[in-house]
């Protein structure tokens, strides 16, 4: 191996060594040379060595030249007086073991190519080992899978040190196979469960990696025979757990529960909540088990609460969850920042769903309408365009709340009876108030907002306005729309001639700023 000058030479030398080992058992010691190269610092050399190992052990696994069964320690076998073949096999199995360990270490290699290569080699070994199991089957048709090796792979993927998102996206290809997915879920739940063992502080990268891996596991929606296996089996037995979707679901649920029982960082929490309703809850064996996590998240407040709402909604709606004071909490969620967060559209979509029932008490709806109107006083135009029709829809659904916009012969008041600080919608006295906020917003600078706010001047039309298309509207879209809109005639012009940048005396700019 010392004579290797360039990569070409190295490859040829390694190739020769592999050929030699495969050709005769007498040359078996050449394996050490190959494994030595695997320890090299040079990236090229490592890659060559990995290739060589892959070929070598792949061939050996296929030939069955590795020891099968509980592996005895090396010294014991070598000193013992058993057959040479057995000695050779045990010895070779130990080399294979060290090779796998080294490959597991290489998953943390700084170069991505090496990582990727190591991963694919390991997965190849997993496949071959699955076909030619290295342990004795306990009975006929026993399902065997290289758990140990696979756990090594998953452990390497869930590194606490560095971000493995690229490698994980590579790994996602394997997750399409049912058996790999099942065992990944098992291995991941083990790894995640042991994450905080003996460690007070788990780094964020670990949670990121774990979330990445967990979120990339997606179960099939409907019950079908799970047959796309990574490890080729001649025939599938019905007794195997891997074949049943129910088992998959159990594993999936266990994995997520073990993950979510930890004190997760807020960002991860948000990410989980974002995918909760869509890709987690439908696959759980018992979705109601998520209630702990969701209520905890709902109590955190702010954006997390908004996100938890979606999961809670599904539990309430589909799984008969009783949630005390739900509307009161929802009412509490309405604060000025609700118009500025990223999940505004989702929140208002859900709020629309929650408030769509016509059996809600009038005081509750009135409190919501009044609260929203109050918040609208600080909202940007894109949010206003959505929330004003929202309020009008509330009033349409609940005719009892129309007093908010139409109270003939009411006494003139000195102050708004509505109490914004009150947490209980029942105590907020919203029904005694009027939507003066909307009247103020009729003076809004944007014409469309002004028009939308003017809707309360007339009796509301009967059909509701669908707010679905308004939910995702951004300010930029409104801007583009305004730019494209054509006026009826020519562009009106200012008739007071300009006298300079700060020319007009009465301008605020001229009063507070100078040119130099």
């Amino acid at each position, binding site marked *: 191996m010392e004579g290797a000058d360039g990569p070409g030479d190295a490859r040829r030398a390694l190739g020769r060594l592999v050929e030699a080992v495969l050709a005769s058992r007498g040359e078996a010691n050449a394996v050490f040379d190959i494994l030595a190269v695997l320890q090299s610092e040079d990236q090229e050399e490592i890659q060559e060595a990995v290739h060589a190992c892959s070929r070598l052990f792949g061939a050996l696994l296929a030939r069955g030249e590795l020891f099968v069964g509980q592996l005895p320690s090396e010294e014991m076998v070598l000193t013992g007086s058993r057959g040479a073949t057995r000695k050779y096999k045990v010895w070779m199995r130990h080399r294979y073991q060290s090779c796998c360990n080294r490959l597991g270490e290489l998953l943390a290699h700084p170069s991505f190519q090496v990582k990727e290569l190591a991963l694919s080699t390991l997965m190849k070994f997993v496949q071959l080992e699955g076909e030619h199991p290295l342990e004795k089957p306990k009975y006929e048709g026993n399902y065997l899978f290289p758990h140990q090796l696979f756990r090594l792979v998953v452990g390497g993927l869930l590194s606490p040190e560095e971000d493995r998102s690229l490698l994980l996206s590579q790994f996602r290809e394997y997750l399409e196979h049912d058996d790999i997915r099942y065992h990944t879920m098992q291995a991941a739940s083990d790894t995640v469960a042991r994450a905080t063992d003996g460690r007070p502080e788990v780094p964020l990268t670990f949670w990121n990696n774990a979330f990445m891996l967990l979120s990339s596991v997606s179960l099939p929606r409907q019950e079908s025979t799970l047959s796309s296996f990574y490890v080729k089996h001649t025939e599938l037995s019905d007794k195997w757990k891997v074949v049943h979707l129910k088992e998959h679901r159990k594993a999936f649920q266990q994995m997520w529960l073990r993950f979510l029982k930890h004190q997760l960082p807020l960002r991860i929490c948000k990410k989980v909540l974002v995918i909760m309703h869509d890709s987690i809850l439908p696959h759980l064996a018992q979705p109601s088990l998520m209630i702990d996590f969701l209520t905890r998240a709902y109590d955190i407040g702010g954006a997390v609460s908004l996100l938890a709402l979606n999961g809670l909604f599904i539990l309430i709606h589909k799984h008969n969850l009783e949630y005390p004071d739900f509307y009161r909490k929802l009412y509490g969620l309405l604060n000025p920042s609700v118009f500025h967060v990223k999940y505004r559209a989702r929140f208002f979509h859900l709020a629309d769903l929650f408030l769509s029932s016509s059996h809600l008490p009038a005081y509750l709806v009135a409190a919501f309408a009044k609260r929203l109107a109050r918040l609208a006083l600080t909202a940007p135009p894109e949010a206003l365009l959505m929330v004003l029709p929202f309020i009008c829809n509330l009033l349409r659904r609940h005719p009892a709340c129309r007093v908010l916009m139409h109270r003939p012969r009411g006494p003139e008041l000195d102050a708004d009876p509505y109490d914004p600080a009150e947490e209980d919608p029942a105590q907020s006295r919203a029904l005694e108030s009027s939507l003066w906020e909307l009247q103020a917003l009729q*003076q809004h*600078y944007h014409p469309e907002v002004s028009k939308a706010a003017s809707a309360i001047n007339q009796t509301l039309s009967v059909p509701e306005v669908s707010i679905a298309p308004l939910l995702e509207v951004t300010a930029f879209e409104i801007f583009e729309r*305004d730019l494209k809109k054509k006026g009826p005639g020519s562009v009106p012009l200012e008739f007071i001639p300009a006298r300079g940048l700060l020319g007009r005396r009465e301008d605020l700019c001229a009063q507070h700023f100078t040119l130099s």
Partner: protein
Amino acid sequence: MGKARSAARGKASAAPAGAWGGRARPNPNPFEVKVNRQKFQVLGRKTRHDVGLPGVSRARALQKRTQTLLKEYKERDKSSVFRDKRFGEYNSSISPEEKMMKRFALEQQRQHEKKSIYNLNEDEELTHYGQSLADIEKHNDIVDSDSDTEDQGVLSAELTATHFGGGGGSLPRKDAQQLGGGEEPHKTRRELIEELIARSKQEKRERQAQREDALELTEKLDQDWKEIQTLLARKTPRSESGGGKEKPKPDAYDMMVRELGFEMKAQPSNRMKTEEELAREEQERLRRLEAERLRRMLGRDEDAHSKRPKHLSADDLNDGFVLDTDDRRLLSYKDGKMNVEEEPSGDASGGENGEEEEEEGEAWSEGVPEDSDSPDGPVDLESDAESEDARERPQGGQHPSPGERLTTGDRAAARAELPYTFAVPESCEELKSLLSGKSMEDQLLVVERIQKCNHPSLAVGNKAKLEKLFGFLLEYIGDLAAGDPPDLGVIDKLVMPLYSLCQMFPESASDAVKFVLRDAMHEMEGTVETTGQAAFPGLDMLIYLKIAGMLFPTSDFWHPVITPALLCLSQLLTKCPVQSLQDVVKGLFVCCVFLDYVSLSQRFIPELINFLAGILHMATPNKQSQGYTLVHPFRALGKNSELLLVSDEEDLATWQRRSLPLQWAGSLKTQTETEANHTRLSCLAVCLALVRRCVLAYGPLPSFHDIAWPLRALLTEHLATHCCPPALQELSRSVLMEMENQPRHYRPLVCEKSKPVPLKLFTPRLVKVLEFGRKQGSTKEEQERRRLIHKHKREFTGAVREIRKDNQFLARMRLSEIMERDAERKRKVKQLFNSLATQEGEWKALKRKKFKK
């Protein structure tokens, strides 16, 4: 009544029937009249078939059939067809003359072809008036018809008539007929007379036309002469008298009278308007514009814009003037000396002046700078530009040659280097190269001259070029603003040409501003998408927004430029977190612009209140007692939450309130701690002033106290800390006072009364029947369809009946033919039998005779 009408109708229809039948029948035979009896008398119905003449119509139909169908039937076995092969006989698109020409040409061709095959030597036959020339030569002694022309010249209708013994004019033809009645060439004679008459008439007409032509010519000549005469009269009255010497010399009195009579009256001109009138007009104009603005502000024209007159620019600046009140002038030279400008003489023939100016302009655009020192043009041009009093306008008529032009003074020298004519730059780089390195005045001058030299009235393409110039100027301004330090002085001045260009080309100007805004927003949107927030844009963007507010009316309910600009401002206030003192300055400037935009319309801006609250929060030290919530770009606690807090007592004491320089928004130089503290306090002062402005503006809003609630909480907190100069404390106290003083009236909302929906009525709907006999109550198309269906049905039944009758007629004809044939045969058979019988008889008789013998 029915009977009377039927009688009249019968009479009317009988006349043609009589004509057909060949018998004149004054009254129809009552037995032939069939009367269709009406069951009911319907008022207003027009009956068309109440009376019929079946016999007559049957006879007519029969005759028609014998003429057409029978003929066809009889010719059914004949296959030869007569075909008219004359050229263009049935082609109506060719006029008869043309047809004749073509026919002639064809004939000639045919003859030529036929002859030339065999006749090698002979050319085509030459003809004159259709007769062979050879023939004419042969009969040379034939009486020439032209020889009569002399007589015919004087022959007129009366003459002819009298000649032929005609008495009354009413019967000339009869007389002629009578005259030639007994003679042998009856026809030819009559023709001859007619020809004579026609010819004489034609000749008379020709003579008349000639006379008219002559008259016209003389008139024209007279007119021409008159024109020249006036010239002659002014210059050399003698020659005129010489020209008209044959006329009697008019006496002086007459001439005087004529002159006075024909003298052009002085045109009544517009009276010079007095100062008050001008002022009133101006006021009126402003009032009208303001009313228009108000209407747009309230957004009432949304549906009524159809009848809205086209918006005229405020100072209808199609004349290319920048500012009508601008009194700047350009220098001019006379004989190498700077001329002192006197009061420009406004009465010096305005129209001519304009023309000259145009000519000048053209000359310049051709790129001849030397021409520019001709009398009026440059001065007029430059009279707008900034100049000194110590310049004089050159006198008209005296052209100082270009070589003599000298310069006095450095500034003048610098200016003199500027050419007087510029092409419009084709790109922004060109404009930049044109303007870079020049002083402020020179840059202005260059822009102004570009504008003048390429006024749209001077050449066709100038409009498009100047439209582009607006965009380039805008870009140039952006570059100036982005520079370090920003050249605000030039921008300040360049606003005026921008304004005038905008007045000239509103559409392109608005497009250019929109483009700039879209660019900036697009960029911001990109950064917001990736990072979730954006930094405050550079000074150029702020300047653009400010300029947009100066070019377009900001108070409109909806405006194609201002509405997007408002959104742009709102985005700046909501998406850009304040991270430095410079951001504060920028933000406050944006707030000022925003408030200026809505200064007239007093519209509500939630973002602005949020922003001001955020700024106040930054200046408030005590974070514990929060009675308010901050929204998005601001955080209650964090890195920048105490950005504007000043704790240095000394700085507090030494601070003087002053305006913020706009440059700081562009690049805030590193300041000492004291300066920075002073800046902070100034920002705070501006912020408080803006709060005050908001309080004044939004005080009347119904939920003002809810809007201003966070501001009030912050201000009270701020006051409680006593950490700002007394002036600011005073200011915030007064703002608080004003807030408190705003009325708290919460009048319950009441919907506007809408028009009640009318109840459904069950009285029958009455439809006005306009025409009888027509189906009502359907659409026009349906009616038309029904009408067509009905017509088709009627036509169809009519056609079927006609066919049936045709068949009957034919059958009858066939039958009569057969009968005829049979009768003939019977007759012939009988004849044969007869002859045979006689033969037999004879034979028998002979036999008997023989027997007897």
